[in-house]
């Protein structure tokens, strides 16, 4: 390797270590890493810009705008209270209902946004029932990572994979990942009940107070709600059809966002833009440029060659290796930088003659998304819920979460391995 490659590896490792250490905000670190790749001449600015995946960024920004406006209508609170009443105010049933809502919301909105909407209403319901919120929050974190696995827009790793590999359409993600995500949720729900039912007992009078609530009062603006539901519905339909329409998923999401802003008027625009998580967007920008340094200097190609050598080109071994390494790595590291590094590595395997890359992409998606359940730092959704809960006086401790999350993560990856083997590898 050339001198430039060693510089690229050095910058990458230092930046990666700083991201893991969480001493400095990950966005600042990633952006500095990306800028160092340019400043040290490892990539020039034009090449760096070329490596920034604007489809990933556009998709995230578009969905953040749509969801932030929709949240203002009270829709998500309405759904949660409606579900609580349908559960007859029973805390165990409510916990399961909120976990299912989180999983479905995560699949079609994205899991980070979904937990941001679910946590406040969870505090409200659990306070009324006088039960601890933490079992509800832990099950929602786990459900968000499983639900997010099911679609292209559900979890940042899938957004990145879907964006990098044009053949993997929204429908391809649903056809290939939704079945296993549903199987995992079906297995997890009875386990949630067994694990948490004793912690969330309540009295009949508290149950009654939930039943007496009028969920219709939670809808704050009916006109806006109809506009949001129409645009959200059309956007999701657009995702299903994006390949036939010859449109990228980012185009669909941004079209939805700006049509909604057109319908709601300028006054909503400023507020909607402030709710876009710009720190996440710039984190992605920094990572894309950081990884570009490894790609342009041939480091990724070398790693891919070594991976092929290690597995002898055997598809079962390669697929299982990617699935399990992704899961374990994603449990302890942020899965976004991990996937940003793995994508060019798998692409390089294709350039080196591995003919069918599809199982490898699904292995990466399953490993990175499900692995996020292993620990509290495994996925962005986990950190967001833990932060919100801690701020309100209900801290979720690292070991407390891991006690539930890690075994469930291992179980989900075992199920995913069986699914992968029987669906793609025999």
């Amino acid at each position, binding site marked *: 390797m050339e001198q430039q490659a060693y510089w690229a590896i050095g910058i990458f490792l230092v930046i990666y270590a700083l991201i893991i250490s969480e001493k400095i905000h990950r966005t600042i670190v990633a952006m500095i890493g990306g800028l160092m790749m340019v400043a040290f001449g490892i990539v020039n600015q034009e090449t760096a810009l070329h490596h920034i995946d604007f489809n990933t960024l556009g998709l995230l920004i578009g969905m953040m705008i749509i969801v932030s406006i929709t949240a203002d209508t009270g829709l998500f609170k309405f759904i949660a209270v409606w579900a609580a009443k349908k559960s007859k105010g029973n805390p165990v049933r409510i916990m399961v209902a909120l976990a299912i809502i989180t999983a479905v919301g995560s699949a079609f909105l994205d899991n980070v946004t979904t937990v941001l909407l679910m946590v406040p209403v969870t505090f409200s319901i659990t306070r009324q029932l006088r039960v601890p919120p933490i079992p509800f929050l832990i099950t929602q974190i786990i459900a968000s990572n499983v639900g997010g696995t099911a679609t292209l827009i559900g979890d940042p790793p899938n957004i990145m994979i879907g964006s990098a590999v044009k053949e993997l359409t929204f429908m391809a993600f649903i056809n290939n990942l939704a079945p296993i995500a549903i199987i995992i949720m079906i297995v997890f729900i009875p386990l949630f009940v067994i694990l948490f039912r004793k912690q969330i007992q309540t009295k009949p009078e508290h149950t009654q107070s939930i039943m007496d609530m009028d969920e219709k*009062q939670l809808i704050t603006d009916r006109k806006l709600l109809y506009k949001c539901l129409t645009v959200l519905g059309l956007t999701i339909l657009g995702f299903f059809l994006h390949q036939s329409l010859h449109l990228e998923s980012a185009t669909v999401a941004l079209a939805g966002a700006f049509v909604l802003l057109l319908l709601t008027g300028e006054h909503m625009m400023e507020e909607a833009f402030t709710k876009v998580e710009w720190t996440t967007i710039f984190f992605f920008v920094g990572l894309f440029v950081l990884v570009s340094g490894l790609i342009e200097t041939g480091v990724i190609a070398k790693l891919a060659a070594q991976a092929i050598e290690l597995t002898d080109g055997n598809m079962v071994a390669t697929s299982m290796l990617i699935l399990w390494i992704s899961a374990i790595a994603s449990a302890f590291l942020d899965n976004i930088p991990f996937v940003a590094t793995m994508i060019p590595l798998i692409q390089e395997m294709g350039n080196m003659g591995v003919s069918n890359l599809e199982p490898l992409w699904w292995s990466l998606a399953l490993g990175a998304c499900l692995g996020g359940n292993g620990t509290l730092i495994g996925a962005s959704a986990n950190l967001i819920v833990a932060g919100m809960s801690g701020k309100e*006086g209900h801290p979720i401790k690292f070991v407390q979460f891991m006690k539930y999350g890690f075994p469930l993560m291992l179980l989900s990856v075992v199920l995913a391995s069986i699914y992968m083997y029987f669906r793609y590898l025999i």
Partner: protein
Amino acid sequence: MRLIYRYNNAVVQISETPNEADIEFKIHTLTDEHWAGFKELQKSFEDNEIYTDVLFYAYEDHRCTAIVRQDYYVDFILGLLKHQLLESVEWTK
């Protein structure tokens, strides 16, 4: 020092009771105008970055329960005053 508040029974009915470490208010507004004021108060607490300062539970017929954290009791009372659900507020020994 204790906070004493007065309200007009003809437009709003308010009762407060302890609820674990918090204070629970049962509020019934008798006019649409006062209900609208109460909803504005609710929005101001729901839009801030603290999720458990005041938790609101809406029922039929302009009735609502608010569970207020001790450290937000004064803010809540002043909010009721601001939206004209109270007529006066004063500190007493």
